[in-house]
């Protein structure tokens, strides 16, 4: 039973010609379609078709456990196939004749040999890699080899001797040898090396970059999750792990001296490959959006179990020389992943996101190449051939790139939409706000109007209305003199004027109020022969007096002045207004006959008291013959 890793570089080389044809076919069919950019450089490879000598007949001396057998055989010789679970050495003798000795430098190209080797030509050591006795040491069987041959060494009959050391399950052995002029052979060698060496390096680097980018995406792009906790997107984590494990698996080709000895290094490779498959499957689960389903949970557990088993199985197979264990494990993993792949593809066909479909295409291609690799390496084991899965796996990295770009686009589109929505909502709010402001304003205006109407009605009632009705009463009584009636009517008009003036009085301006009163009463004062002394200071506005309070104050002062004019029989009236620490103080002082300030209040005085109370002013009356003081204190 052959032990081989699906990802480990192997190479089939029956003939350079065949390889070339296969490569041409492969390139024309899929490589150009799959990875035109990444692998475009491979198209540069041209194999010169010169006369090449392919040596496949060999006489082999194979030493296993100290016992040597000699036989004639045909290369390639795949050690693991003929010596299952055994390690050992082999010496191959290959003879070839040359009709004429070449003059130009020759070269020898060995698609695969190892794990350690020596190459002799006609008794001269041409190349040695590794220690033939150090089992499980460094592995030099990973890349093709080229040996330059000086034409001086070549004779008409030549013997090439190749000695190898082969470890268990490490794909040791010897492939066919290709000889010929340096240019042609080196070109064939270079072509093969590009596929296996450089190609692997490119894939490793690509996977490493994609893995690290995915890892940083996972780390830096947390999405708000349940219960206010930020939840990192496992999609990125699985992609990152898959790519990193893939890088590890592929880079094996480039590592001749592994950090841990064989077969443990082999175990690492198996685990890396398994981890790649498992993480890729989990990645697909996330891509399909099944991450939260119970089935996905069970699937994840099963994959975890497989991973846990991988170490034991690989160790058993490689160290315990039981390749069947590894095959079994591969089988389980393969069936699992294949079934999942079929399910994933099936869902992609019916109803799925674009993300799902892109990954499905990548998966399909990978499954195709995976099956091809499986056939080449396990069903029909050859010492041969490259794994193509290595290259097709790049598609997963590209798919991840697509996902990231698509998500970024969706996020920015969402942000744009959000902004637009926000702008619309803000303008809506503005409209609503303006509307409610207008409503408020209308309400306020209405309230103001109502208050104004109330004030005017009250004004008409107290002022003009009461004066006109007393005029009517006077006329009805028939005992009224014309002068009295005239006075009443003049009072009426004065009240009306004062009422109109009050509308224009700046609220709180007591000075303006007094000045206006004086102006309105000037004709009457002039007619009364009372000397008016004006002691009105410039007063600061009393903030708390509104229009209505101003009118009340106007009434009070008017009433006080009317009393002096009508009843006091005074010769001097002094009006004072000053600012005192207690507030604005108005005083009307006359030298008339006075009145009994303690007697029950007359109607006029009664109303003055009420008004003073209404505006929160203090009204004081001091009256004695010769000096009467009416004081209004507005604090």
């Amino acid at each position, binding site marked *: 039973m052959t032990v081989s890793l699906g990802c480990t570089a192997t190479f089939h080389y029956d003939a350079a010609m065949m390889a070339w044809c296969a490569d041409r076919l492969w390139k024309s069919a899929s490589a150009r379609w799959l990875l035109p950019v990444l692998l475009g450089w491979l198209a540069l490879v041209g194999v010169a078709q010169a006369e090449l000598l392919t040596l496949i007949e060999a006489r082999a001396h194979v030493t296993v456990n100290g016992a040597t057998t000699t036989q004639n055989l045909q290369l390639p010789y795949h050690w693991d196939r003929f010596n299952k679970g055994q390690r050992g050495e082999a010496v191959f003798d290959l003879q070839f004749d040359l009709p004429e000795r070449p003059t130009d430098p020759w070269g020898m190209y060995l698609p695969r040999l190892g794990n350690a080797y020596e190459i002799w030509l006609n008794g001269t050591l041409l190349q040695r890699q590794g220690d033939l006795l150090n089992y499980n040491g460094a592995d030099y069987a990973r890349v093709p080899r080229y040996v330059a041959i000086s034409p001086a060494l070549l004779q008409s009959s030549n013997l090439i001797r190749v000695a190898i050391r082969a470890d268990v399950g490490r794909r040791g052995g010897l492939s066919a040898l290709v000889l010929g002029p340096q240019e042609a052979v080196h070109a064939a060698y270079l072509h093969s090396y590009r596929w296996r060496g450089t190609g692997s390096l490119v894939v490793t680097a690509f996977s490493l970059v994609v893995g690290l980018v995915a890892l940083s995406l996972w780390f830096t792009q947390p999405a708000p999750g349940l219960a206010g906790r930020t939840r990192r997107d496992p999609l990125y984590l699985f992609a990152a792990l898959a790519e990193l494990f893939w890088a590890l698996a592929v880079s094996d080709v480039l590592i001749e001296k592994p950090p841990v000895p064989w077969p443990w290094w082999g175990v690492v490779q198996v685990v890396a490959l398994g981890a790649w498959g498992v993480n890729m499957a989990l990645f697909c689960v996330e891509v399909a959006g099944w991450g939260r389903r119970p089935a996905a949970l069970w699937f994840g557990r099963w994959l975890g179990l497989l991973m846990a088993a991988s170490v034991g199985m690989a160790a058993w197979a490689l160290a315990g020389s039981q390749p069947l264990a590894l095959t079994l494990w591969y089988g389980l993993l393969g069936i699992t992943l294949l079934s999942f792949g079929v399910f994933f593809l099936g869902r992609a066909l019916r109803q799925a996101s674009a993300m799902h479909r892109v990954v499905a295409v990548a998966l399909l291609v990978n499954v195709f190449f995976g099956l091809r690799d499986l056939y080449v390496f396990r069903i029909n084991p050859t010492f041969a051939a490259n794994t193509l899965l290595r290259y097709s796996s790049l598609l997963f990295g590209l798919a991840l790139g697509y996902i990231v770009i698509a998500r970024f686009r969706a996020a920015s589109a969402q942000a744009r939409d959000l902004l637009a929505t926000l702008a619309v909502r803000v303008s809506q709010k503005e409209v609503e706000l303006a509307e409610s402001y207008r409503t408020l304003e209308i309400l306020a205006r209405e309230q103001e109007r109502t208050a104004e109407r109330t004030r005017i009605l009250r004004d008409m009632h107290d002022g003009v209305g009461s004066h006109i009705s007393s005029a009517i009463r006077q006329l009805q009584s028939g005992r009224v003199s014309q002068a009295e009636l005239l006075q009443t009517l003049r009072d009426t008009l004065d009240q009306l004027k004062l009422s109109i003036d009050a509308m*224009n009085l700046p609220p709180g301006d007591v000075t303006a109020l007094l*000045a206006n009163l004086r102006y309105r009463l000037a004709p009457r004062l002039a007619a009364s022969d009372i000397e008016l002394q*004006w002691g009105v200071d*410039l007063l600061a506005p009393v903030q708390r007096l509104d229009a209505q309070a101003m009118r009340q104050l106007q009434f009070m002062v008017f009433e006080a002045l009317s009393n002096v004019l009508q009843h006091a029989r005074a010769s001097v009236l002094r009006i004072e207004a000053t600012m005192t620490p207690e507030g604005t103080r108005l005083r009307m002082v006359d030298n008339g006959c006075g009145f009994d300030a303690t007697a029950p209040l007359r109607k006029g005085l009664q109303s003055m008291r009420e008004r003073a109370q209404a505006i929160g002013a203090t009204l004081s009356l001091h009256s004695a013959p010769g000096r009467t003081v009416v004081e209004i204190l507005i604090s």
Partner: protein
Amino acid sequence: MAWRVLIVEDDPPMRAFFAASVLRSDQLSLVASVGTVAEARAWLDDPAHGVDVLLTDLGLPDGSGLEVIRHARLRQPSCEALVISMFGDEDNVLASIEAGALGYIHKDATPGDIAHSILEMKAGASPISPMIARRVLLKYLKLQSNQPLALSQRAEVAINKEADSGGRNLLSGREQEVLALIARGFSYAEIARLKAVTVHTVQTHIKNLYGKLAVHSKSEAVFEATRMGLLPSQG
């Protein structure tokens, strides 16, 4: 020679009352009394007619007495106008002054007061209420302080261009003081005493003020028109 008086008043009894009041005085003669704006215009348009005093009501059936005042100033520049006002309220009085009136008479004034007011005005005395004084003060203070410099400069330019007297159009310091005292309720006599000037000086200030208000209201219109682009800028 008696001052020729034209009365414009739509209420016939009131018109008759004012006519009688005018006729009481030897120094006044009634040349016409009409009831509408149209009649007044027609009368004023007749070049044969001359008038020294226009006595007009504000609320007329076919328009405002303000139109009559403006028309009279146009046709008879020497004519001085008095407005008949029911209440002497500041809005109406201010509008009248700005239209060119030099005083106002209350409807409830006695016949003697009416003749007296007309003669006082012709002698150079115009009445002004504390309310009006306060309003005028506020208005000028606002004009002087609140307007941006460029605007007020332009306003001043416009005013100066309009002014036929060539004198300053904004209030002088003395005029402001007088106005402030009137606004506080002091009488002309008290102001004259406080400022150590004659009552006549105070009266002159007030009358000047009337003229300025009328001119200024016209300038304001010009300024506004200029600002709104209705007239070419003159700055």
